[in-house]
């Protein structure tokens, strides 16, 4: 196995985990179909695949929470049957889940103690936490309450919790989706150190660049099968994505354009918290003009949700003049009213917010298409709805049974294509999109981005809020950063660098070099500090 990184596993060439012919069938789908996987001691091994490729099922099998229908698991050379997660932990398998399982009202120590035997002494545990954290360069204060921690810090708690069990295999599921680029780099250092000590790491991700930077070996999965095993450092992002989706997504060509009139204007928008764990918005000002895409970067939980709700009209507590659409103040107008004034909105949650799970795709159109073409004299025109839905399915290549399929029956990526399609078909003057490609496979993501760019070229004003910096750098004309409920000055995409935006994501745009924002008229007050 060609390996450019230092990996003790290669020298000893002993195998930590070996899966042979693992198969798991569900009523409607074969999630894992004869999967073979070899993880060496001290190896950082990535499992790469689109949503629904079967990565999560495979990890659950290794962690003992799902039983395979067929296949063999060899742990350090011996065949084992992992009955449940606690058996997995006894073997030395630890897992850090994508969604944290921490109690907000408890301290770090108390949270970690919950998973340990009853007689654990808290003060001793706190010392152990501190030592372990320091050893791996994970900054952590054991006495702090979890609700005061940032998302990145919460993840560190989860990692330390896993490390305290002295694992031989650490499984990480999409760990970087909540981190700033700088925090990702720190996480990688920790993982490399762990691997150097002989701990094997299974790293689940769909971010090709990260895998290429971090991992020794990469197993690629597609539709429940292994489609390739490779050394990611020897592959290009394009060749990896070919293995993953069977095709290479088309690159988006950036064309500089002159933006038109101001379509969406936010002026000194401040909103108090709506609940204790929300983020207050403070003094947010920016504009979005016709024919441009403005991207808002930021680590999750810094006010994105609150800003989106205020802009979409789901939260109408804003000052009357704080938000205007095409020059008209709409601070107190609800979502339907703003839609009438040319706004379109794609929310980050698809099921339950962007679409009603149990309703058909055709009926789901009514959430945003409420004009004369779909509703006449107070009655719904079902045939018209089916027509529009069929049109969207065809034009946006949505994989669905048809207009009468329920929203819940679609995969995440397909539903997102449908929702984006639904909003694009309304021909909005202003379109706000949150996390356009969150959890969407590479092929669908490329298609969605291309649609957004096409909409911009047609003269729509777009605001895209995303936690994926690469995406924002790919499609935006200008970038803003949101941190702690405040918004940074705007910077042209071509003038921005990843490291600068990463710094701003920590809220540090006031210090150091003021950004050279060329469109000075758009610099909000926050930058005058």
């Amino acid at each position, binding site marked *: 196995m060609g390996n450019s990184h230092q990996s003790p596993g290669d020298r000893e060439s002993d195998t930590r985990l070996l899966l042979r012919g693992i198969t798991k069938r569900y*009523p409607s789908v074969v999630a894992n179909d004869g999967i073979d996987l070899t993880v060496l001691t001290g190896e950082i091994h990535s499992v790469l695949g689109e949503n629904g490729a079967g990565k999560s099922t495979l990890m659950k099998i290794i962690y003992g929470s799902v039983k395979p229908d067929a296949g063999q698991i060899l742990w350090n050379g011996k065949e084992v049957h992992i009955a449940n997660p606690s058996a997995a932990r006894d073997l030395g398998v630890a897992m850090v889940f994508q969604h944290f399982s921490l109690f907000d009202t408890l301290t770090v120590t108390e949270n970690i103690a919950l998973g340990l035997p009853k007689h654990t002494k808290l003060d001793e545990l706190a010392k152990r936490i501190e030592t372990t954290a320091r050893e791996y360069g994970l900054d952590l204060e054991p006495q702090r309450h979890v609700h005061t921690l940032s998302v990145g810090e919460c993840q560190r708690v989860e990692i330390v919790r896993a490390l305290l069990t002295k694992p031989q295999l650490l499984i990480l599921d999409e760990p970087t989706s909540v981190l700033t680029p700088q925090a990702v780099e720190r996480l990688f250092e920790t993982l490399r150190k762990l691997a150097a000590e002989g701990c094997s790491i299974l790293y689940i991700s769909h971010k090709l660049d990260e895998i290429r930077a971090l991992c020794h070996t990469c197993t690629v999965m597609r539709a429940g099968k292994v489609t390739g095993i490779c050394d990611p450092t020897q592959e290009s992002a394009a060749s990896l994505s070919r293995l993953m989706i069977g095709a290479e997504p088309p690159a988006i060509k950036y064309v500089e354009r002159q933006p038109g009139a101001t379509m969406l204007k936010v002026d000194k928008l401040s909103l108090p918290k709506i609940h204790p764990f929300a983020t207050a918005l403070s003094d947010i000002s920016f504009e979005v003009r016709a024919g441009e895409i403005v991207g808002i970067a930021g680590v999750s939980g810094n006010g994105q949700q609150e800003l989106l709700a205020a802009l*979409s009209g789901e939260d109408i507590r804003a000052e009357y003049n704080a938000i205007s659409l095409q020059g008209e103040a709409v601070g107190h107008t609800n979502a339907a009213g*703003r839609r009438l004034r040319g706004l379109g909105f794609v929310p980050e*949650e698809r099921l339950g*917010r962007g679409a009603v799970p149990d309703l058909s795709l055709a009926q789901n159109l009514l959430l945003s298409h409420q004009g004369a073409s779909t*509703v006449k004299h*107070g009655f719904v025109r079902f045939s018209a709805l089916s027509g529009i839905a069929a049109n969207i399915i065809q034009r946006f290549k949505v994989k669905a049974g048809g207009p009468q399929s329920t929203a819940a029956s679609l995969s995440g990526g397909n539903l997102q294509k449908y929702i984006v399609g639904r909003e694009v078909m309304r021909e909005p003057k202003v379109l706000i999109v949150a996390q356009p490609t969150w959890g969407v496979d590479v092929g669908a993501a490329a298609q969605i981005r291309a649609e957004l760019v096409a909409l911009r070229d047609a003269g729509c004003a777009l605001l895209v809020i995303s936690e994926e910096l690469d995406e924002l750098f790919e499609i935006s004309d200008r970038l803003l950063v949101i941190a702690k409920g405040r918004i940074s000055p705007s910077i042209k995409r071509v003038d921005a660098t990843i490291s600068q935006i990463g710094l701003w994501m920590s809220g540090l745009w006031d210090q150091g070099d003021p950004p050279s924002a060329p469109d000075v008229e758009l610099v909000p007050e926050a930058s005058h500090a």
Partner: protein
Amino acid sequence: MLKLEARANPSTLMSWLSPVFALLLTVLCGVILFVALGKNPLEGLAAFFWEPISNLQGWAEVGVKVTPLLLIAVGLAVCYRASVFNIGAEGQLVLGAIAGGWAALHMNDGGNTGGAAMIAVALVAGMLGGMFWAAITTVLRDRFNTNEILVSLMLVYVAQLLLSYLVHGILMDPDGANFPQSKLLDDSFLLPIIMQGTRLHFGIVLALLASGLGWVFLSRSFSGFKLQVGGMAPLAARYAGFSSRKSLWTSMMICGALAGLAGVCEVLGPVGQLTPTISPGYGFAAIIVAYVGRLHPIGVIFSSFIMALFYIGGELSQSRLGMPNAITGVFQGILLFSLLACDVLIHYRMRWGK
């Protein structure tokens, strides 16, 4: 061993078969119950499922019971689809009876001749009475975010005590030997009988009309759509800009009006006067009716028919078999629990496996 396995999609077929299974289970439990009590189970079942519909008179009586159950169940279906858990329809029924009955008695005392117009006035008064009672719950929920389940339930008892107070007081018949009940209404104030020689009155037409209109409202109108989106996915409703307050008020007012109508139809129908116990729990039984009918305004026609059989069968088995009065309630309860159990099959399937 029998195993439950999650279905990839909820089964539509099962969602309609589940009430049928529930009914079969209820029958089975009924047989066990009759045997345990030393009664002939065939006779028992006949009292419930055959005798009520063995002649025209029986069908008419079933229709009399279906009327209030169906009216209320249509209203409840609208409420529950909007996730507004109004369980106080019984109270709204009582207020409808009070308001409509009072209006009719007042007009009757005034020496009026009755007739269609005055009956209509009384019916509208009953609907307004039910809406007023529902509005109390709604205002409290809307303004102070109180729990509508608790408030509407508690208001049932207030309504019943209010009715009791009135028929013991100002509405009591002065020539009624101090019985707590109002004067009997003149025939000209009663709903017309639509089948001669029986008690089946015009209310059944109103109930079927409500069911049809309820179906149009829920499945065809945009406001019915908005209301259901609010029930299924509140965040999606907010995203779409559908007002949750509006759907709260719409559904509560529809339900209040229909429950009130059910109440006044009882007064102007089979009862003919105001008594302290105007309803044998129709407002509560209608909750079961609504769920067995799958919260579908047409589906509740069938379930209210079943529930009406339970009411009549309960009375018959008291007189024929000497069963206790509680038998109707027992059957209602078994039906509800069986339904809840069978509903598991909508999301899961059973499998024989190791």
